[in-house]
């Protein structure tokens, strides 16, 4: 689905209610180009576009450095295991592992400039912004704890997810079209899991967060993909029988077609 800019702009300007932190006087409004991403047989990924604007009123103070936007897109949660291989008796085996409890299956942090120039390290850590600061609770034996941001298992997990295109931090992912109007494109690779995605838009000015707006969307299977998935989940035995029959018939059909004797 391509962005339909004029339509979205009208929607954004007409949007009411998506706002936060009224104490500062700025209101943040944001809207996605599409709230329901359909996964069909020819799905090869999609790019969602987020449009947003900053509304000012009488109480708004003038901002010295202009506005900054950080968009965090968090996919459905999934528990993962990270293994580390080590040499035992001359062979490489998975010697050590960490379980990551409910890690986001997809994570994109988009901003209009590098995060460390938007707010200081302490602030970013407190707001859990960026791949370095996102909480990834690990389970070590029984207790669950959030490891330090330089934990090797955590770094390896983020690196592999980034290589798969499922985690990303883009410091030029948000573009300001006007001083108070911005757009961001959210790339969804074909491997994205189905489920509910949270889009968390935060407005910064002078190194502090002044407003926040959520905008969730959903990735779901439709048509044939949905029929097959439902059949496999809910009627597993029957589905298996049909697949086996399909195998037997395919095999028989080939031997008839290719019969030469």
């Amino acid at each position, binding site marked *: 689905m391509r962005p339909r800019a004029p339509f979205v702009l009208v929607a954004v300007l007409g949007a009411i209610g998506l706002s936060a932190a009224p104490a500062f006087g700025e209101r943040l409004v944001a809207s996605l180009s599409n709230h329901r991403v359909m*996964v*069909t*047989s*020819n*799905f*090869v990924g999609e790019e969602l576009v987020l449009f947003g604007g900053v509304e000012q009123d009488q109480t708004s103070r003038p901002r010295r450095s202009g506005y900054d936007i950080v968009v965090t897109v968090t996919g459905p949660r*999934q*528990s*993962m*295991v*990270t*293994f*580390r*291989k*080590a*040499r035992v008796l*001359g*062979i*490489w*085996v*998975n010697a050590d592992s960490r*379980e990551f409890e409910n890690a986001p299956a997809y994570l994109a942090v988009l901003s209009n400039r590098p995060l460390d120039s938007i707010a200081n390290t302490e602030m970013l850590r407190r707001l859990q912004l960026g791949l370095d600061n996102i909480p990834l609770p690990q389970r070590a034996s029984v207790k669950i704890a959030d490891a330090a941001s330089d934990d*090797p*298992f955590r770094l*390896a*997990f983020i*690196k*592999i*997810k980034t290589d798969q295109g499922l985690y990303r931090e883009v410091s030029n992912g948000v573009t300001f079209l006007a001083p108070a109007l911005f757009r961001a494109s959210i790339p969804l690779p*074909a*491997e994205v*899991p*189905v489920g509910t995605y949270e889009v968390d838009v935060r407005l910064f000015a002078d190194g502090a967060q002044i407003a926040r707006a959520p905008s969730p969307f959903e990735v779901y*299977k439709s048509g*044939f*993909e*949905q029929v*097959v*998935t439902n059949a*496999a*989940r809910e009627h*597993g*035995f029957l*589905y*298996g*029988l*049909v*697949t*086996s029959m*399909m*195998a*037997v018939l*395919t*095999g*028989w*059909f*080939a*031997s008839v077609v*290719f019969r030469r*004797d």
Partner: protein
Amino acid sequence: MQIYLPIADLPVNVFVILAMGLAVGFISGMFGIGGGFLMTPLLIFLGITPAVAVASVTSHIAASSMSGAISYWRRRAIDLALAFMLLAGGIVGTAFGVWLFTTLRAVGQLDITIGVSYVLLLGIVGALMVAESVRAIIRVRQGKPVELRRPGSHTWIHGLPLKLRFKRSRIYVSAIPVWGIGFLIGFIGAVMGIGGGFLLVPLLIYVLRVPTATVIGTSMVLTLVTMASATVMHAATNHLVDAVLALILMVGGVIGAQFGARAGQKMSGERLRLLLGLLVLAVGIRFALDLIVPPENVYSIRPLDTDL
């Protein structure tokens, strides 16, 4: 042409999958093996999760075996009696294998057990087959007669009681080693997640002295039954069989198996055994390298709560 796989949750190129099905189907038709030990790693390489790959490959193997089995049936190269006797042992072996699988997973030693047994099994079986068939080929080259039947080479196995006559294979052996081989194949298949055809073929040839001609067709019938039931079991318990992926693999697989079966019939027994031995050995070495060579990235990730 890209198509999105509903259960594997990713798009794949139809022609790549089709070509893989063709290639593995050809090998499976030629040697009478399922080819799961070749197909599963290929699918994992494409990014499909191991659990979905293993579950979906079972139906592809069933289709290839069906297509190959019909060709051999027309050539009267299937010993149904032998296949049923093997199956009887196989069911018990599978149950025992599933029990061991669960136990090993509970202890946390499944990965290393599977890795090491792959290397040992493939390495030993491959090496033995290559050595034997090279010796046979040399004998033929030197002009010595091919020993199709070796009356003097009866081992203790042939002295066991409960003797049965398998007419199609023209052998007269005790039911005990037949059940034993069936048990072993079922057991190894359940623990290692493979059809076991590459193991069954040499066992039938060397232990039971079944002629190479009927071995392949018989092995295919056995593979067909076990893999079709494995598909149903995987679908009913794990819900991880991707029917779209399976169908594309099947179409390629059955066509490949037809040509493979024809190529196999044209080749001499010992040459066929040499090729299969080399293939098994190569895959064994490939698994050994995984264990020995320092990995590029010592870290790997996988979702929790899925097998393999």
